[in-house]
């Protein structure tokens, strides 16, 4: 029985009524400021996520939502645009009255340049007004959903205008930064240097929206909430691991950005490295943010550096040519808008990684990501070793290796492949699959990642955000590859057709080890 207010781990008095409720701690009253508020991410993801947090009663009673971007909007125009985005993209359908009008009262807008300190003074006035009128208590979450090129400028102006944490005497200040965090190791370190001048590490929330997906969080549950997997989760039983993030889409309207990024920067350095860390890490000592992030960091530190001379042996790159997706013809990468006609940017990257620790020594982790591939698939496949001795099976029966697949998208679930006897008088063995699907298993759909991540950042829970040491180490891992790829034109580009399994060089990468990719 609770008889008095207790304290949470961060020293805040805990509400004794919250025990047993759906949310055991509602975020503090706060303002959320969205830089880049007129952008596509805000429209498609962020505002619908906020609305659904409101419907789920996860927003605090006192909150303010402030949009900031260059576009000229009045408060009412911005609210109307946000309602339109909710109506169009919210998973719970259009915003309805009377809740919408109540929600809209909390939304306001500041128009300005990201490098103009006067505009940030205007923002400060707006936030102080919200503190008075909406009771937001001086707490501020700054969400940088802008192109990375202006991250530094925004952080700098926040500091100069007195919006940084040092000048916030009444509440907390946090900054939420969209990926990519830097475009290479040097730029990431430079960005970190600027960010850390203003914000302490515990105030920085680096988003990798993959981490907000239920199946990604389920990787830890599968490993550490079951007794049957962990004993075989090591070099004695695991033959290899394949991590795949395949897309059918091309660069769409992001040609200008993507042509300077490529698959290695866009996917492998962040999303795929996070998956690698989750699947390979040791059990954390506790479930708090730093215990988990400590273990993830240790894995990345143990990744064997890819020697520049081995880049060609341990990696493969590709660029899509024209082809067909779902029967529809699509253009090649070099024909996409805003892409250089002689671009050397990879739209497909595959990397073989070794982890030098006791658990994973000599077990190859094959990472791949690409655009315009045959299917949209994100998954982690653990392939177990072959049987030490073949006892069953007729001649010609293939005794496949056991494979455990964690499906992240579009399917969400787990699949285990094992061998079973075919009914009949003879001992025929065939590989069968046992599937668990989140949708049918629990009868509920996963909430979008952004809902989880925004709610966590407001609460101050950094578990699903990437810490600087992990970001830096992930850059260190990919830098030799980036350097090599940037300095060596791949004359074979374009080297795979849209709608295919990827470039032949990727197949050769595994063939050298006597293995092959799972079909996408």
């Amino acid at each position, binding site marked *: 029985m609770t008889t008095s207010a207790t304290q949470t781990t961060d020293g805040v008095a805990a509400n004794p009524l919250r025990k047993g409720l759906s949310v055991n701690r509602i975020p503090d009253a706060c303002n959320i400021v969205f830089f880049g508020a007129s952008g596509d991410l805000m429209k498609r993801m962020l505002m619908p996520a906020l609305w659904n947090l409101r419907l789920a009663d996860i927003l605090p009673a006192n909150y303010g939502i402030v949009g900031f971007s260059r576009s000229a909007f009045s408060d009412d125009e911005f609210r109307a645009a946000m309602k339109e985005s909710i109506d169009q993209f919210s998973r719970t359908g259009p915003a309805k009255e009377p809740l919408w009008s*109540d929600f809209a009262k909390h939304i306001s807008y500041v128009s300005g340049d990201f490098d103009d300190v006067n505009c940030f003074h205007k923002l400060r006035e707006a936030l102080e007004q919200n503190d008075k009128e909406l009771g937001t208590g001086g707490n501020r979450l700054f969400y940088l959903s802008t192109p990375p090129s202006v991250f530094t400028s925004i952080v700098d102006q926040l500091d100069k205008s007195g919006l940084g944490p040092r000048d916030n005497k009444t509440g907390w200040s946090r900054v939420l930064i969209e990926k990519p965090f830097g475009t290479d190791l040097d730029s990431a370190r430079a960005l970190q240097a600027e960010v850390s001048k203003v914000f302490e590490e515990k105030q920085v929330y680096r988003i990798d929206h993959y981490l907000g997906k239920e199946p990604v969080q389920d990787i830890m549950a599968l490993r550490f909430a079951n007794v049957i997997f962990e004993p075989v989760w090591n070099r004695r039983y695991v033959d290899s691991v394949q991590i795949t993030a395949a897309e059918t889409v091309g660069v769409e309207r992001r040609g200008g950005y993507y042509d300077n990024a490529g698959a290695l920067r866009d996917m492998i350095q962040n999303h795929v490295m996070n998956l690698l860390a989750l699947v390979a890490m040791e059990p954390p000592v506790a479930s708090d943010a730093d215990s988990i992030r400590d273990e993830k960091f240790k894995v990345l530190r143990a990744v064997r550096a890819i020697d520049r001379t081995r880049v060609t042996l341990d990696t493969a790159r590709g660029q899509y040519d024209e082809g067909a997706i779902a029967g529809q013809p699509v253009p090649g990468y070099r024909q996409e808008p805003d892409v250089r006609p002689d671009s050397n940017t990879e739209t497909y990257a595959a990397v073989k990684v070794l982890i030098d620790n006791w658990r994973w020594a000599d077990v190859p982790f094959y990472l791949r990501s690409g655009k315009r591939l045959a299917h949209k698939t994100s998954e982690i496949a653990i392939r177990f070793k072959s049987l030490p001795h073949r006892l069953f099976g007729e001649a010609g029966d293939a005794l496949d290796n056991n494979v455990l697949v964690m499906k992240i998208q579009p399917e969400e679930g787990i699949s285990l492949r094992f061998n079973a006897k075919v009914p009949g008088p003879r001992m025929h063995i065939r590989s069968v699959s046992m599937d668990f699907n989140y949708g*049918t298993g629990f009868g509920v759909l996963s909430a979008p990642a952004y809902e989880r991540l925004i709610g966590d950042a407001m609460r101050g829970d950094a578990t699903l955000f990437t810490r600087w040491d992990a970001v830096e180490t992930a850059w260190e891992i990919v830098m030799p590859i980036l350097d090599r790829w940037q300095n060596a034109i791949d004359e074979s580009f374009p080297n795979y057709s849209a709608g295919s399994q990827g470039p032949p060089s990727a197949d050769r990468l595994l063939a050298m080890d006597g293995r092959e990719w799972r079909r996408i």
Partner: protein
Amino acid sequence: MNVESSTVSSSLDAIRAQLAHTRLSTSTFNLVVWIDDPARRDWILERAGMLSEKYPSFTLILDHTGARSGDATVTTAAQDAESIFSVRGERVDIDVAGADAATVAAYVNELCGPGVPTILWWSGMREESRPIFEALLPQVQTLLFDSSGGARDEEAMRKLVAFHKVHPEVELRDLAWMRLRPWQDMIANFFDDPALIGELFSIRRIHIESGSDSEAFYLASWLASRLGWAPTGHDAFTDRKGGRIAFERKRIGDIRRVQSICLDSETSWYHGEVTDDPGVVRVWVEGEHAREPRLFPLQAIDNASLLERAVLETGADDVFETALRFAGALLE
């Protein structure tokens, strides 16, 4: 989803033979539903149907209303039209109007699948059904009840309190309690502001208006259990310092629904009141900590959602059980 129903005799052999045509590919629970009130039969069947269609599960409807004619229906729902082995759900509806306790217990014992929890949704209120209830209890892990399902008064809650005293080992779920979650969220929301947490310990009066009594007793008892109050009589609690907290309730509005709540502290009045839209509550504070009115969305409280929560949330609910004990003390 491909659904196929067959009517067979109520004999266990006939039902088993029909079920043997298929196998559940995945099963998450067995849901046993007892119905003995003809007036609520359709309502309960609809909710049970929604649940069994959504989850890979086995549902056994024990129909004691006399609306069936001595037969059983076996329904299987396949995951896709192509498959004959991959079955998403199975459901058996049996006429048990003339069956004795041993026969009904045999249905449950023989037909429910092993290895997954068995949940009994007991919608009965008739005293003559008690032997069957007692016979089924040893076979279930979770008992699902609705103390405000069929009546506005406190009688069903008294029965539940008495049952819990005798069978503390049974995991209880009361839909009347679960329906209150959005109201609990709303009340908690008043005091999430650290500056207002102290207010919780100076509450002097609770006034609740609801369509049936269970809601009022549960909400007040929940607050008491969280804040260290002790029930004193039918209409009051005492806090740790010996202060009296008056408990007032008024039966008004639709059954199973809360209309309003007011908490009076020594300095402020905390109000929540359903608006014209039954899914939205207007909340405001008067007095020293006055707050402007704002709207609070009541999350889904439809019975299908409550049933889902009841089957997904496993284990004893100590917050609920404490509140139930306190409600029992108020009812004495």
